[in-house]
C-alpha cells in the first residue's frame, strides 16, 4: 500500500497531463457529436424522402464501423488524399462522427415522443417547420433526451481512451507509457482506472439528476 502511495505521488503529475487531453477529447467530440447528431435527427424527421433516407444510410454506415477503424482512417488514410490533421483533431473528429449516430437515434426518439397535437397547434398558428422544431418540439424533447445523453457522455469519456491508438497522449496512453517504462503495472493501471472513475462519478450523478427530473414530469 505504501508503495502505491509513493507511485501515486510520482506518477500523478504525468497522468494529470493525460487527464487534460482526455477532457479535451471528450468535450470536443461530445460537442461535435451533438451538433452532427442533431443534424442527422432533423434530416430524419424532416419528412423529405431524400434527406431522411440519406440520414438513415449515414447512421447505419457510421454505426457499422468500429471507432478504432474510423480513427485509423482519419489519421492514417486521409493524409493520402491530402487531408492531414493532428492526432488530437483526428481523435475529436473520429469520436464525434462515431457517436453522432447514437446521438441522432436518441434525439430522433425524443422528437418522435412529442405529441402530434403539439406540432399541429404550432402549424395552426402559422409556424414554419423550423419554427415548430425550435420553439415547440426541441424544448420539450430535451427533457426526454437528457438521461440517455448523460449516458453517452460517460461512454464518450471512456471511449476517449481509443484516441491513444493514434498517439494522442491522453490518460490511457500516458498510463501505458509509464507502465512500460517502470513495469509498475499494478500501481499505474489502478491509478488510471481510479482517475477515469473519478471523472465518471459527477457524470453518473448528473444522469441520476436528469432521470429524476424526467420522471417527475
Amino acid at each position, binding site marked *: 500500500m505504501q508503495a502505491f502511495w509513493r507511485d501515486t505521488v510520482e506518477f500523478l503529475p504525468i497522468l494529470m497531463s493525460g487527464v487534460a487531453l482526455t477532457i479535451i477529447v471528450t468535450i470536443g467530440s461530445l460537442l461535435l457529436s451533438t451538433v452532427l447528431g442533431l443534424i442527422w435527427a432533423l434530416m430524419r424527421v424532416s419528412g423529405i424522402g431524400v434527406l431522411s433516407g440519406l440520414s438513415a444510410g449515414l447512421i447505419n454506415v457510421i454505426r457499422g464501423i468500429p471507432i478504432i477503424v474510423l480513427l485509423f482512417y482519419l489519421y492514417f488514410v486521409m493524409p493520402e488524399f491530402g487531408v492531414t490533421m493532428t492526432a488530437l483533431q483526428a481523435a475529436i473528429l473520429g469520436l464525434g462522427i462515431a457517436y453522432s449516430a447514437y446521438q441522432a437515434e436518441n434525439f430522433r426518439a425524443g422528437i418522435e415522443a412529442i*405529441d402530434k*397535437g*403539439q406540432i*399541429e*397547434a*404550432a*402549424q*395552426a*398558428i*402559422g*409556424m*414554419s417547420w423550423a*419554427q415548430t422544431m425550435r*420553439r*415547440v418540439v426541441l*424544448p*420539450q424533447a430535451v427533457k426526454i433526451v437528457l438521461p440517455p445523453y448523460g449516458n453517452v457522455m460517460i461512454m464518450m469519456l471512456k471511449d476517449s481512451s481509443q484516441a491513444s491508438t493514434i498517439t494522442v497522449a491522453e490518460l490511457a496512453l500516458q498510463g501505458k507509457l509509464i507502465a512500460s517504462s517502470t513495469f509498475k503495472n499494478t500501481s499505474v493501471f489502478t491509478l488510471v482506472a481510479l482517475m477515469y472513475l473519478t471523472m465518471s462519478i459527477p457524470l453518473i450523478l448528473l444522469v441520476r439528476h436528469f432521470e429524476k427530473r424526467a420522471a417527475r414530469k
Partner: protein
Amino acid sequence: MIELSDVHKSFGKVEVLKGITASVEKGEVVCIIGPSGSGKSTILRCINGLESYDRGDIRIDGARVDRNAASIVAIRTQVSMVFQRFNLFPHRTALENVIEGPIYVKKEPRAEALERGRALLARVGLAEKADVHPPQLSGGQQQRVAIARALAMQPKAILFDEPTSALDPELVGDVLGVMRKLADDGMTMVVVTHEMAFAKDVADRVLFIDGGVIVEQGPAKSVLNQPQHARTQDFLRRVLHPL
C-alpha cells in the same frame, strides 16, 4: 368567407369526405354535428390545411387552401383553430402560449403582443393565470387559454374541433360561455360539437354530416327541432335521449 366545393378526401382506401360543398359567411356561427367517424373533424382540418384534400376546392376569402403552398401560412394566421385536447405548449406559461404566434409568426413588437395577450386572458376570465404553466390548469382553463391563443392571431374565423369533448362536465359551461361571447361579438366560427344546446342557442346554421356527406343543413333551430332526414332524426334522438 369560407367556401368548400365538392371536397373529397381519402385516408388510404377509406373515403372520409365524399363531396362536401358548403360555405360560411362572415360573422356566421356554423355548427357541424354528426356521428363520430363521419368526417366532421376532417373538414375543419382541411380548411386550415392540417390535412390535404384530394379533389375539390377550399377557399378563404377567395384564396385557395393548399397545405403545400407557401400561402398556407397566411391562411393559418387568418383562420385559427381550437383543438379537442387543447394542445397548449406545456413548457410555456399561459401568457407565453398566447403571444407565441403574434411574436414569432406575425412579428409583432413584444410589448404590444404582451399587452394584448393579457387583455385576451382577461377576456376569457384567466387574467390571474397569466404566469401559470398549462399542466397546473384545469381542462376548462386550458381550453380557454387555447381560445385566447387563437384570438391573439386576430383571425377572420376560428375553427373549433370538439372543444368541450375532453372536459369534465362541470367545466364545459365556462368554455361554452366564452364561445357564446365570441359569437355575440361577431366572430366567424365553425364548431364541430356534440353540445346540442349550444348549437341550438348560438349557431346560425347547423350541418349534419354522416358517412362523409352533408345529409342535412339549415338554420340551427329547424335542423335540430324538425329534422327532415331520417338519419338526422335518428342521430338527434340518440344524442338527446341516450337512455
